[in-house]
């Protein structure tokens, strides 16, 4: 790990220089009330004074609509083509530690077994610049799932705001390469203790006990009652930085077409419905149960890690104000 410093006013120069070099820069941008990751053309567009973006930056490596391959009918034969890799690097700026841990999970999920070609093409060309959280809100619960607001997991570069400058941790080779390309904006630095610059996020439940307490939660009798407000809109899954479920659809024209991968969500009935009409998860409570247990139990059994990173987006965005913190606490109290 290497350390640098960058003066606060030099940060905008650094970001604008990245944009000038034709790299795609994604950063949090204010829409109306909410902040979304969007492509920005100048540092001034970056949102200030927000706690968390409405949607995560996962679309940089797992977009809502991705071409798996294209096909064309040429002389009676079908010719299949892989999609090309992105031309330029994508730099994602302003990634919170929860989201960094989410990218780490995405990399494990997509690359460990049956490595995913499309994810890798994008991931290899994506550089993540994280930023330590100075504060959180009542929906944040990273510390309850074993992540701290200054965690560097999954990130390439980490910035922490000090009094007059940003403290820079260079975590990976990708990060190192980027800093070297723009080294004129950075000064050398020593390692420092980030604690006093890091938000204090209360622990709502004990992350070490989650797996044990949830292991027989499938049969909990209160699933029906606790999921009544849910009307299955799917917003939680779409805004979640670790939700990876997808649909495969073909789009055709008379000469060919493509097979596409699209975001999907287990919150809707159609997700598990068989062609025969049978649906193993007929009721919303069964779908809600599956969501909670998947994030806090099943992925732990598969990969050894919870797939919830405590970003709180699901609860913040939920139109029926369901709270995942309350849900997990309720189960753990049984």
């Amino acid at each position: 790990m290497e350390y640098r410093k960058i003066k606060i006013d030099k940060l905008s120069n650094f970001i604008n220089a990245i944009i000038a070099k034709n790299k795609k820069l994604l950063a949090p941008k204010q829409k109306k009330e909410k902040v979304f990751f969007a492509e920005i053309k100048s540092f001034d567009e970056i949102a200030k004074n927000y706690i968390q973006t409405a949607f995560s930056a996962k679309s940089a490596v797992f977009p809502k609509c991705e071409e798996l391959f294209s096909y064309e009918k040429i002389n009676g034969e079908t010719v299949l083509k892989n999609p090309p890799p992105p031309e330029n690097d994508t730099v994602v700026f302003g990634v919170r530690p929860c989201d960094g841990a989410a990218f780490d999970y995405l990399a494990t999920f997509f690359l460990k077994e049956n490595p995913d070609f499309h994810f890798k093409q994008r991931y290899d060309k994506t550089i993540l610049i994280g930023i330590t959280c100075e504060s959180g809100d009542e929906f944040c619960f990273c510390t309850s799932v074993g992540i701290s607001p200054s965690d560097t997991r999954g990130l390439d570069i980490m910035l922490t705001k000090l009094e007059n400058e940003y403290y820079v941790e260079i975590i990976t080779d990708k990060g190192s390469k980027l800093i070297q390309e723009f080294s004129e904006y950075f000064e050398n630095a020593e390692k420092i203790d980030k604690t006093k610059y890091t938000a204090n996020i209360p622990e709502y439940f004990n992350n070490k006990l989650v797996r044990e307490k949830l292991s027989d939660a499938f049969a909990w009798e209160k699933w029906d009652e606790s999921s009544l407000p849910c009307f299955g809109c799917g917003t939680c899954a779409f805004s979640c930085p670790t939700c990876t479920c997808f649909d495969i659809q073909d789009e055709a024209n008379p000469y060919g077409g493509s097979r596409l991968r699209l975001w999907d969500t287990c919150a809707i009935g159609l997700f598990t419905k068989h062609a025969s009409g049978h649906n193993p998860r007929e009721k919303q409570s069964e779908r809600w149960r599956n969501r909670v247990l998947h994030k806090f139990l099943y992925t732990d059994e598969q990969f050894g890690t919870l797939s919830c990173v405590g970003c709180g987006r699901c609860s913040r965005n939920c139109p029926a104000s369901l709270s995942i913190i309350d849900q997990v606490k309720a189960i753990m109290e049984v």
Partner: protein
Amino acid sequence: MENMYLPYRMFIEKITEEAPLVRTYRLKFKNPQDEEKFSFKAGQFGEYSVFGEGESTFCIASSPTRKGYIECTFRVAGRVTKALANCEEGDEIGFRGPYGNTFPIDDWKGKNLLFIAGGIGLPPLRCVIWNCLDLRENFNDITILYGARSVQDLVYKHELEEWNNRSDVNLITTVDPGGETPDWKGKVGFVPTILKEASPKSENTIAAVCGPPIMIKLTLPVLFELGFNEENIFTTLENRMKCGIGKCGHCAVGPYYVCKDGPVITYKELQSLPQEY
């Protein structure tokens, strides 16, 4: 790195109409290099597609002992199967596979085998039945119990005859009461009932069951009564599948992905999964 979503290009060599709305397609690889590096084991499945319509999941219904082609049997149920049914011999379709785990045939050597299938549940077992019959000397008694709603709903009618004529196979066919025709020579009754009647021995026997959920539900108690234990009852699972490689999440039952950790599973393992079935 390979793009795992890119299908092999296959062409339909032969179409067999098995029953109303049920067809078997014999497929060959368009590209001989694909055929050379392709191999599969009994129990695995694939994603068959019509470009522009989508993909559908069926087991590979032919045996790996028979080289040069693969077969799939499907019933027309939705958009993609309808598009597949509209294809003719010589048409091109896509195939991704083989995916999933396999029947542990090596562990079955020296044992008796009991195959129980209902209706459209015979195709997923046909691959392993033919695999075992092609290696007949490795196994003791082989019994096949197959039932369908009516005579016309029986699939692989030609092969049923072949199996019936073999002296080293005990074939019992049955149709539901009311489904028999005047010249029907097989049994009449639901599969669990006929199984009870036949009373095959459970000692040193492996049972593989496949069929509609209600048939499996009523067949299992009979098997337990006959003395079969949970590790020796196999089935092959079905669930909504899309990617086939454990990524899209559709087929997951708890931490178990039917496409990756299945579809072949013992009854004992099935009990340990969240009871969403």
